[in-house]
């Protein structure tokens, strides 16, 4: 179960949600939260093919359709869709054109493989954290600044 705790950061009280680290790295960014499971392949392939500077979601069945998730902390329940997602995620990490980190309730080895391969073969870090109850994650409002600590496996809502 998640250990929920609060800590003082400067004068502000922040909230920490503990989960499992699927890949390393520490980043901060604006959250974008969806309750819908997320197909990384369907979402990112068009932006990759077009060499786009933005990362607009191309999955028209998704509520984030047409939203730009570049440099965001992308939060969803769990990944779905075809197995290309491993190297699609790897490519978005290497090109630095997608989100900065992913947080979900239940990740899988396929999604992790993209981030772990980025670290092993390209020396690039892209933190993914899972095993945080979605009932907690969905309380995070869009555009809230979130710190994702993939080294220790928690996120901090700033």
């Amino acid at each position, binding site marked *: 179960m998640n250990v929920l705790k609060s800590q003082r950061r400067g004068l502000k009280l922040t909230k920490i949600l503990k989960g*499992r*680290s*699927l890949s390393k790295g520490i980043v901060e960014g604006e959250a974008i939260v969806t309750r819908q*499971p997320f*197909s990384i*392949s*369907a979402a*990112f*392939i068009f932006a*990759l*093919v077009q*060499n786009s500077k933005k990362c607009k979601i191309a999955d*028209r*069945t998704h509520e984030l359709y047409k939203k730009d998730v570049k440099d965001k902390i992308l939060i969803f*329940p*769990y*990944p*779905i*869709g*075809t*197995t*290309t*997602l*491993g*190297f*699609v*995620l*790897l*490519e978005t*990490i*290497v090109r630095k054109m997608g989100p900065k980190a992913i947080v979900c309730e*239940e990740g*899988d*080895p*396929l999604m*992790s*493989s*993209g981030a*772990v*391969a*980025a670290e*092993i*073969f*390209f020396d690039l870090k892209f933190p993914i954290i899972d095993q945080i109850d979605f009932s907690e994650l969905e309380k995070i409002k869009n555009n809230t600044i979130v710190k994702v600590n993939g080294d220790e496996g928690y996120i901090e809502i700033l």
Partner: protein
Amino acid sequence: MLSKLLKLIVKLGDTFGAEKLIEISSAHTVLNFGLNFVNASAKVLHQMAEDNLKVKVRTTADPIIDMDYADEFKVVYPMFILHDQLMKDLEQIGVYGFTCTPYFLDNKPKSGDHCAWSESSAVIYLNSVLGARSNREGGLVDLACAVTGKTAYHGLHITENRKGQILFKLSADINLTNVFNLTSIGLRIGEIAGNKIPVIDGLSDISTDNLKNLGAASASTGAVALIHVPNVTPEAKDLNEAFQYDKPEEIVEIDMKDLEEVREKYSTEWAQTPQNISIGCPQLSEEEVINVLKKLKGKKTLQNINLWICTNNKVKESIKNSEFNDILISSGAKITSLCPTLTPLPRPLTTNSAKACFYSHASYRNLDECIKIATEGIKTD
């Protein structure tokens, strides 16, 4: 390079609680035939080839460009900038096949075999129909497993993790002899099951080809990697065995209204007559191709429409040397080993495939309707 590849398997295995590595008997990889979004993976593969690594087990790969149609695709093919290099490097390390249905070639693992496969539609077929065992690999892990001959022991390699979770019951108002209903059921099951293991009651007459098509749909709208169908799939002689003598976590009924809903949700409707119609995603079995050709007998595809019949190279050659070649030629349909989902076929596009409709923004029609549109066009009153 080999140590880095092994590190990739071990790191993922550690995270997901694997206690050991196990030997695999087969692998299948996907590199989307060199579209410009596989640059990073292609670099790693190239290094593997340079280091003279070889696969240790039978390893196939997904479809590549079909050079028989180089003229039709002279605008599209240059997008596959990495195609030639990928092909060379894959062949160099010992990968062959180039189909999304390698089980129709000789990469057909036996029940209980441990494997490392990617290609969501192939993984679900391998686990469900063949009763072999693979997690949904990908992102270079499949190739890492192929050259090391090992994978991490977790997930679907472990018997207890193959237990059915959600029981799907089919309402009597669904006509199960209609393949279009079966693939639509697949779309609906994927949405509901997500990453859980569905058990479908009442499908005991489904063919393995149709289970292939249904499973591919569930693996598109969900992350389903294994479906049990009592009386059909090897780990489910009955409902009890499918649930490993436990109770379902959830029971869901699917009716005709659900199927109409998913069709509306996933089909992209075009006002104009399609330029391209693709049949088969996953690629068709030989029996499925013959079924399409029988329906095309005596008919002719309209001049401004391409009707693509997608299958593997072996079936393509076999059909061309069979009695059905006459129908193929007279109908004007085009048999191909290309992947209709990854080849950016000019729109409007129509397909009979639930998977292709999901990924390709195509209109979704049953096979008979696809053939009618191809040969008669869309009648507007």
